[in-house]
């Protein structure tokens, strides 16, 4: 079976007056299988959201993408990719409070989406919308449809957002930090809902998060992003249990959960570089505890070592 989504050597440049000002995504390779939940993790600024937007075919102004993003055979980087948005792929953003337009009811905004993709009568539209608001387990779907965004809590809005994303039965659902703005208990319910719907409909999920705990809880596979590249990729359990790249190791070690309170946390020193223009060698070299001279010269490719587990560290290449 071929993959549903296949991203090959995706690069995203920001161009201002003919000059490239930044290249926040520098050659991402990623495949998502049918019905798979894949996690994309990394610190903020690593290019997670931009990658998601490229898959959606919706890059911000000034950004140009090269490489290929094939979704079910269709080219998402082609100019007409926007037509398929909502049909084949849709997205749920981090902040449900700002993702909805405050001056329209939830129902009206869902109806807009249905109209763009389906040729329904008004009654069919109503039924369709209500059906999906019920699916996302909103306690009173009819009332939610008639509500304005500010009348719903963050958790309820995120449910409505998920309903909107699923209205046209996409094959791929992108979730960009879907629970970051929510409390833990609400977040957990939202994730459980996504799993539930995924079992029902069988769509694939690209889950963007910086939370390795969430990845652990629900993802089949995980891609670790650093400075616009996938630096480690594999089965979730495998990657979290025996990470190969020092960056992945660093992210895991930095977590305060179940640490000995008498020992300092193993923090990664420094921060994500804010501009990747003109970087040579491994972008993580400056922060890496295991850096060697070669790291400054060679930017290692993502290399599969054991079954499906790949990483982009020079020590793996040489091993």
């Amino acid at each position, binding site marked *: 079976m071929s993959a549903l989504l296949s991203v090959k050597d995706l690069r995203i440049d920001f161009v201002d007056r003919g000059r490239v000002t930044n290249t926040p995504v520098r050659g991402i390779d990623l495949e998502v299988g049918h019905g798979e939940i894949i996690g994309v993790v990394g610190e903020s600024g690593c290019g997670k959201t931009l990658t998601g937007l490229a898959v959606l075919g919706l890059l911000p102004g000034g950004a140009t993408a090269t490489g290929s993003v094939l979704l079910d055979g269709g080219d998402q980087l082609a100019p007409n990719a926007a037509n398929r948005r909502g049909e084949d792929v849709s997205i749920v953003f981090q902040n449900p409070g700002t993702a909805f337009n405050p001056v329209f009811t939830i129902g009206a905004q869902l109806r807009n989406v249905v109209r763009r993709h389906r040729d329904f009568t008004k009654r069919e539209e109503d039924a369709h919308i209500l059906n999906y608001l019920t699916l996302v387990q909103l306690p009173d779907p009819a009332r939610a449809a008639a509500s304005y965004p500010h009348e719903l809590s963050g958790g309820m809005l995120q449910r409505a957002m998920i309903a909107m994303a699923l209205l046209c039965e996409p094959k791929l659902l992108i979730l960009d930090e879907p629970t970051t703005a929510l409390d833990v208990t609400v*977040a957990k319910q939202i994730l459980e809902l996504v799993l539930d719907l995924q079992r029902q409909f069988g769509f694939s999920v690209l889950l963007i998060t910086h*939370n390795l705990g969430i990845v652990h809880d629900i993802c089949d596979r995980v891609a670790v992003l650093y400075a616009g590249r996938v630096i480690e990729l594999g089965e979730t359990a495998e990657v979290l249990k025996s990470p190969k790249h020092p960056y992945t190791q660093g992210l895991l070690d930095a977590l305060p959960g179940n640490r000995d309170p008498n020992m300092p946390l193993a923090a990664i020193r420094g921060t994500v570089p804010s501009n990747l223009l003109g970087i040579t060698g491994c972008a993580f070299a400056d922060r890496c505890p295991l850096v060697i001279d070669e790291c400054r010269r060679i930017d290692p490719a993502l290399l599969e070592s054991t079954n499906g587990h790949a990483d982009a560290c020079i020590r793996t290449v040489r091993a």
Partner: protein
Amino acid sequence: MSAVLDLQDVVKVFGTRRHPHRAVDGVSLRVEEGSIFGLVGESGSGKTTLARCALHLIEPTSGRAVFEGQELGALSRGQLRSLRSRLGVVFQNPVAALNPRMTIASLVAEPLVTHTKLRGSELKSRVLELLDDVGLGSAYPSRLPHQLSGGQLQRVGIARALATTPRMLILDEPTSALDVSVQAQILNLLRELRTRHDLTYLLISHDLDVIRYMCDSVAVMKQGQIIERGDTGAVFGNPEHEYTRSLLAATPGQRRIR
């Protein structure tokens, strides 16, 4: 052991008389000398409001906040001002908590100018010393906040809070706006500073892992009230309240649900 900060039945009501909203609803807690006291709860549970009452940035509707044996509400403006040099605070959002038009050096100098007689080159060297103390090198003093990352800004926030050699810091979600990697740096820094300067912390967070790692004792807040409290190990190891259990269960990273 004696309590550095002692909150007694603090109540803060917002809203109108007809629609009162008890954001803090009768909270008492004692933060012992040298300890790290954790305050955990979901957003809107009243943690920040309680901190503001403890600092007398807002007046509690009723109840008392006592710091080093002095009741804040009974102090004169001058006394309250000088007390502020011994009770520092670090805010959740380091970007918002720093005046965007002031350089890092003048931001760190502000509490020193307020509370000490240091001026000129002495002031400057103390500022550098403080920046060094929080792990910021000499490249930063002349920069503006928007030229620093979130983690660096939070270090500046901590340097300011430390400037007047306080006895206690109230830390309101100091790492919630930061990546885990940077969070680890800041938590380590806070622990180091505590040992180096004999500090007492009231650490507010919605993150149970952070509280568990950092704190000696903890209070769980819900809807303005403390519903459970005790030693961190006891509360997290054997939670008595249903709500605490649900918070613990919801923390991701424990159990696969797919």
